[in-house]
């Protein structure tokens, strides 16, 4: 079979058109690089549109006591101190500028009385910190970046007579392989979804911004795009993944009715006064406040209720605990038989606020449930339960440049596909600002990497031929299984055995089953032709989902403690010794290899932002002694 392959030459290729990808592309183009943006779906539809709550940035518009140090502290606490401290620091320092910058691109956030950007409360954040637009912040973010790219294209049109002279969007295009020249990135290979034709991008620098992996789970808020492509591309190119055992299960996804299963109920429902009740009508979160948080959270319903109007003199309601605590509490209630028939609990805002107020504060939530499920949230409680939502793990990167670790050079990663920033658990709202902060850095450093290159790496023809063969294989087989059946089996394994609560035996079982699936996936066959054939597309995505799932299962088996987005029933406590360890996955041939790697050390100036009593819960005695020595020195 002869195959026609379209070729393009770019300086920087950005894979992914979500917040991170678009921000990276803008920066690369501003640095004068010829930039391509590649996306599996249409321009402006990436997963980022779904983010609702807001983007966290310590601008201090609502409470002037907020600053980057408080934000940094919250982020580290949320991540249970497993975060890469440098990423958390850069993020806390730079996110206000990144948000303000969006206003110069035309974004319209909700305002405070004095005309500044309004900020709202969110679980895990000490002060109101989330810049937002109603409950469609992600849409605003992606539309703003999309329109900024259009404005750059208009500039190019004026200067060069062509909109696409320096920045071009390839929508509905999927990258299946990164191509290397030695250890240097030389390009990316993929296909147009519309036509099934192949396309080759030759480029010395690639930015991965492909988002997450949630499609490997049964109940998930994620769309079909989230098949872990970027994670798998990085692995195959010789980069490493860290923290893959940490997955966030959103505590409150709808579990019933089916048309809204997996759809999230934003956390702001709880921020605005919503409470969780079990089937007995008990407000159960008071029973689940961990010791670590006791000081900040209310002990009685009365105190909790006072907090909404007077946050300075009361402690916050336990419904606003970090999301993993909430998810675990719901899971325990359901397992103890106090859940609803569909396996969830009740989230009640109807009895707490007047209907008018609910409609005003949560307009799209109200409409969504009214139209999709005929549920009126101003009248009845919602049925919610844990839903796979976000992967903390991802490509191990250098914090300042976003360059991928491992052998490969010229590969950068930002957004959900990168790892380290959020440690073992991400705070709500920290992702949108993460996309902007590290998206910008990735674009900037990809551009300067290209400047520093002596020779442009070359794509080798045999590599391209191999990529073509691999892509066509599922279409040419007609004996294998259907990709949809295989995906269902994979989702069952991950959902049942590597889900929110994990056990040794089940994880071992999962690895055996994933091994068996691997053989079946290698023989998958897709019916139909090459034009817009979703069966074929899924068949190609499966191997990515599989290798990423293997990383998660392996790392989850190795980490014998519970922390953030990783809960082991057989090791229910957090172990300070494990805090010092990152689990790093790489590929050895086609097998996943897992290694332990020490975490970078917190420098003194950041160390001192915490109280000793708090640190004592996370650190080993040895580390505490160091802290004491530092404190002594400072006196």
């Amino acid at each position, binding site marked *: 079979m002869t195959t026609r392959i379209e070729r393009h030459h770019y300086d920087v290729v950005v894979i992914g058109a979500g917040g991170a990808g678009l921000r990276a592309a803008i920066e690369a183009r501003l640095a004068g690089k010829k930039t391509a943006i590649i996306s599996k*779906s*249409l*321009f*402006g*539809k*990436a*997963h980022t*549109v*779904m983010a609702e709550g807001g983007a966290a940035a310590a601008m201090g518009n609502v409470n002037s006591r907020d600053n980057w140090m408080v934000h940094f502290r919250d982020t580290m606490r949320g991540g249970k101190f497993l975060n890469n401290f440098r990423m958390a620091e850069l993020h806390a320092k730079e996110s*206000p500028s990144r948000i*303000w910058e969006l*206003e*110069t*691109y*035309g974004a*319209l*956030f909700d*305002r405070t009385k*004095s*005309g*500044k950007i*309004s900020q709202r409360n969110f679980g895990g954040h000490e002060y109101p910190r989330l810049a937002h*637009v109603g409950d469609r912040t992600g*849409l*605003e973010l992606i*539309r703003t970046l999309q*329109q*900024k790219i*259009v*404005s750059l294209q*208009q500039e190019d049109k004026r200067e060069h007579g062509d909109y696409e002279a320096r920045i071009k969007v390839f929508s509905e295009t999927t990258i299946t392989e990164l191509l290397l020249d030695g250890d240097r990135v030389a390009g990316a290979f993929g296909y147009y979804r*519309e036509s099934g034709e192949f396309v080759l991008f030759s480029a010395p620098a690639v930015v991965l911004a492909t988002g997450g992996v949630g499609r490997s789970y049964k109940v998930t808020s994620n*769309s*079909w*795009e989230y098949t872990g492509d970027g994670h798998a591309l990085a692995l195959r190119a010789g980069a490493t993944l860290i923290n893959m055992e940490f997955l966030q299960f959103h505590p409150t996804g709808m579990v019933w*009715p*089916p*048309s*809204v299963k*997996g*759809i999230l109920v934003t956390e702001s429902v709880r921020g605005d006064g919503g409470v969780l009740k079990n089937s007995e009508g008990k407000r159960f979160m008071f029973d689940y406040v961990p010791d670590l948080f006791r000081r900040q959270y209310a002990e009685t319903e009365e105190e909790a209720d006072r907090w909404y109007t007077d946050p300075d003199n009361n402690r916050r309601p336990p419904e606003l605990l970090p999301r993993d605590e909430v998810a675990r509490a719901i899971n325990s209630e359901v397992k103890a038989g106090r859940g609803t028939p569909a396996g969830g609990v009740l989230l009640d805002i109807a009895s707490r606020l007047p209907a008018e107020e609910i409609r005003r504060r949560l307009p799209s939530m109200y*409409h*969504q449930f009214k*139209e*999709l*499920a*005929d549920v009126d949230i101003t009248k009845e409680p919602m049925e919610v339960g844990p839903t796979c939502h976000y992967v903390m793990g991802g490509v191990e990167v250098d914090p300042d440049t976003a360059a991928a670790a491992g052998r490969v050079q010229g590969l950068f990663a930002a957004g959900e596909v990168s790892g380290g920033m959020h440690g073992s658990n991400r705070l709500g709202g920290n992702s949108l600002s993460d996309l902007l902060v590290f998206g910008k850095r990735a674009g900037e450093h990809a551009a300067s990497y290209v400047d520093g290159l002596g020779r442009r790496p070359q794509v080798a023809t045999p590599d391209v031929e191999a990529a073509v063969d691999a892509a066509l294989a599922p279409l040419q087989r007609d004996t294998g299984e259907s*990709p*949809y059946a295989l995906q*269902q089996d994979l989702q069952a394994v991950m959902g049942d055995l590597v889900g929110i609560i994990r056990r040794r035996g089940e994880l071992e079982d999962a690895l055996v089953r994933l091994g068996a699936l691997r053989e079946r996936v290698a023989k998958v066959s*897709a*019916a*139909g*032709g090459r*034009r*817009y*054939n*979703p*069966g*074929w597309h899924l068949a190609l995505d499966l191997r990515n989902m599989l290798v990423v799932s293997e990383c998660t299962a392996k790392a989850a088996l190795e980490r014998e403690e519970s922390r953030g987005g990783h809960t082991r029933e057989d090791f229910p406590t957090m172990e300070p010794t494990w805090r010092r360890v990152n689990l790093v996955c790489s590929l050895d041939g086609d097998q996943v290899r897992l290694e332990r790697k020490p975490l970078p050390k917190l420098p003194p100036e950041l160390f001192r932002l915490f109280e000793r009593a708090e640190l004592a819960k996370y650190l080993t005695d040895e580390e505490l002694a160091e802290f004491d020595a530092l404190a002594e020195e400072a006196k």
Partner: protein
Amino acid sequence: MGTKRQFKVWRGDENGGELQDYQVEVNEGEVVLDVIHRMQATDAPDLACRWNCKAGKCGSCSMEINGLPRLACMTRMSTFEETETVTVTPLRTFPVIRDLVTDVSFNYTKARETPAFAPPAGVAPGEYRMQQVDVERSQEFRKCIECFLCQNTCHVIRDHEDNKKAFAGPRYFIRAAELDMHPLDARTDRREYAQEAQGLGYCNITKCCTEVCPEHIKITDNAIIPMKERVVDRRYDPLVWLGSKIFRREKGEAPRGSAAITATNTGAGPQLPTVTPVPPAGERSPEADAERAVNWHRAVPAPVAPPVGDNGMLAVSEFAFDRPAAPSPFGDDVRFPMPPNQLNYSHPDQPL
């Protein structure tokens, strides 16, 4: 627990295609997109269909369901009778790529032609100050999820391929209006641009775009009419001119405003298509139904002017009102989407 239901799905590509029959299990609480996914997992693994969020947030899953432009993920199966055949076809206005997927690049081309936000000179990032009431008017338009259902519905391009060059469509009128109303946008020629370069003059305010918008953006009332209105100071627009004439004349006869509103609702404005009577269920073919559901050859509705005040101008009540932008001419208690019998489309089973 599910029951088997009848579906007709258009399968084909730019060379043509046809409606194919599927019998699919449907469970309680499902939407059309759930059913399409089930078809993909069983009978039709290569059925092409766009989707992303399955929550009405991304605007990917636009298609025509029983002839109505809809988001598949927001169309509940419970809105159909159990015995009813549900017919799913791709958007009409855009060229088909395959099955339910169409080439919507027209919209991206128009997006690229609309001048971007112009930041105010001398205001540093972080120094932008705007009041909530001022941003809300533009925010209404920024709710747009780019589903392009309004673009698909607007007869100016739906029925006349050659208009595509000169006409940007309702999605981009609201973009122009959004920037026009943006408190800090530095350009002052947004309305003139809409009139001259976007083809705003082609729009005869049929409001079909507003009717199909899943985000309930009042495209015509809050964006198109105000822009036409204000542009007319400097430019002769026959429609607005005609509109003010009609309403000036009517004013003596009936209380102002209510006349205009009832006119719109009783069909003196946009005509409901005149359709031949529905044959009894046994004699009907779904192909014919799908064809019949929308009256492709309907006369272009006569222009309806907005309700105007004594000075012949639109009421600028949006400034004094308790919600963003002007009150709906349908009455603020009317909810969108409107009941199908008030739309320009007729449901195959709807008695006419």
